[in-house]
């Protein structure tokens, strides 16, 4: 069985979905304009507060978070096989559901990376944020890591809403809000009560964002690597859980008939 071959073809399906969703023009002047407007509002809020540090904190936080929230769209894309009727056919295909789903949804973290980098670039230029080439090069793989770990989380959410598809937009909005509010984007996660702070340690973005802030603030390699490793572990854990749940849901669907439901 060629897992990579299925993944590659799944990726082509995802790319076709994406092209159906966005043209270059609508991506630039619809999607990015919306993202940038939102990010500008946050960074301007930092400027209104009169603190350069706060402004920088909000700029970095938002530039990374938009990538993560874009990657969350993979949860929504997990349900599309239900709508186009391919889900039961994928379940019974010998190569299985996992490679096909991973392939089809992988375009969304890629969109997240592009969104995050573009936002970073525009905000840096607009607000005169000082960013060295060295720091930018070091931050880039960490942005990729954040989008990848959020992808793992998104697949888990997708496995859940695959059974209750009408909740897909709610799940996307709730999980996006959760990441934006509690994972250290506008305020450090330590700002929140201890139980909440403890909980967000298990969410994507939290550690990755700390690693990126560490790179940009010269926090030291040890700190950056530790946070990056935690982000990778969180993302990988969600991915493993997602694949297991996806398989479980498929088997349960065969038993209770929900394999073909779109509810």
């Amino acid at each position, binding site marked *: 069985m060629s897992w990579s071959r299925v993944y590659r*073809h799944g990726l082509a399906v995802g790319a076709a979905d994406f092209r159906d969703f966005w043209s270059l023009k609508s991506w630039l002047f619809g999607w990015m304009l919306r993202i940038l407007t939102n990010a500008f509002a946050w960074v301007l809020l930092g400027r209104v507060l009169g603190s350069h540090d706060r402004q920088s904190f909000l700029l970095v936080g938002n530039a990374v978070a938009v990538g993560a929230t874009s990657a969350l769209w993979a949860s929504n894309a997990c349900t599309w096989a239900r709508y186009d009727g391919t889900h039961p056919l994928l379940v019974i295909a010998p*190569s299985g559901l996992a490679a096909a789903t991973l392939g089809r949804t992988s375009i969304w973290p890629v969109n997240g990376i592009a969104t995050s980098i573009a936002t970073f670039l525009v905000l840096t230029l607009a607000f005169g944020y000082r960013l060295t080439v060295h720091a930018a090069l070091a931050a880039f793989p960490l942005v990729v890591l954040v989008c990848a770990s959020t992808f793992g989380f998104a697949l888990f959410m997708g496995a859940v809403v695959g059974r209750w598809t009408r909740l897909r937009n709610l799940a996307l909005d709730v999980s996006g809000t959760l990441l934006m509010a509690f994972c250290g984007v506008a305020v450090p996660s330590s700002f929140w009560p201890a139980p909440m702070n403890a909980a967000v340690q298990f969410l994507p973005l939290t550690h990755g964002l700390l690693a990126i802030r560490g790179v940009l603030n010269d926090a030291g390699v040890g700190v950056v690597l530790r946070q990056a490793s935690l982000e990778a572990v969180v993302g990988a854990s969600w991915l493993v859980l997602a694949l297991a749940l996806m398989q479980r849901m498929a088997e349960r669907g065969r038993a*209770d008939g929900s394999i073909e439901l779109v509810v």
Partner: protein
Amino acid sequence: MLAIETKGLSRSYASGNEGKSLLALDDVSLQVEQGEVRGLLGPNGAGKTTLVKILSTVLLPSGGRASILGEDVVQNTRAVRSKIGIVFGGDRGLYNNLTARQNLEYWAALYDVPAKETKLRIDRLLARVGLTERASQRVSGYSRGMKQRLHLARGLVAGARVLFLDEPTMGMDPMAARDFRQIVHDLRGEGCTVLLTTHDMREAEALCDKVALIDRGKLLAVEKPAELARYVAKYERIDVEGASETLLATLRTHGGVATVNRAPQGDGHRIELADGAAHRSILALLVETGVTSITTSRPSLEEVYVHLIGDRGLEV
């Protein structure tokens, strides 16, 4: 070895919130020989699709056993999946944003068709289903018939030995349906076993070696299509308008007439035959007595069931 075998197969679904269950398949036992085209004929909701979905491992049975080429559909799911192809009717099950070729390449990868063989196999399949010229066009621009032919190519891309066709010509125009049936006919010549669900009796007659009649989850009978056609012809009915009471009385005692009743629609009467041989003499009698509004028709599938099962003294 049988291509398809079921013993006491049943499937129930949870219905509503009261914990009630709905029996979709009830104790179905079926044997299909290799290379046979078997029709599964029944009205909507009869259980045909549920049976196909269990045999193709989409659904698990609630009870009984089923096997494909000797492999149990519950125990040896993986082995079964490598031997079957499934084609659902309708628009769903394809990637509309991809071309036909890309769709087939994807399914070939999913069924682990060796990469070296894939192109040649897809070229042949596209030619077979008449889509070579449109192979590079996005499926979203396809007609219903073209999508259905692509569905069939998808079902065949892995070299299935047993093919399940679930209402494959549903919604097709007559020409497209005819072409589709020709392809199925050709498959039979190549030794592929086909289980075809339909509620179109003529389709079943045209394609199938045998037809299994199913209703309300129960397998009612297995007949050869010729036998089914005989029943259809036997129970033909004649709707007339303007027949006098005297003529109606004469018809009621005429040989080969089962019943004479008010027609379900309009002001006329319906004459139901019990013997197709009486058809000609009754038409002659009607014309001789000046009746000019005469419509003949064949019974619906449900009516054939009633007659068929009623004749055997079974309850439908």
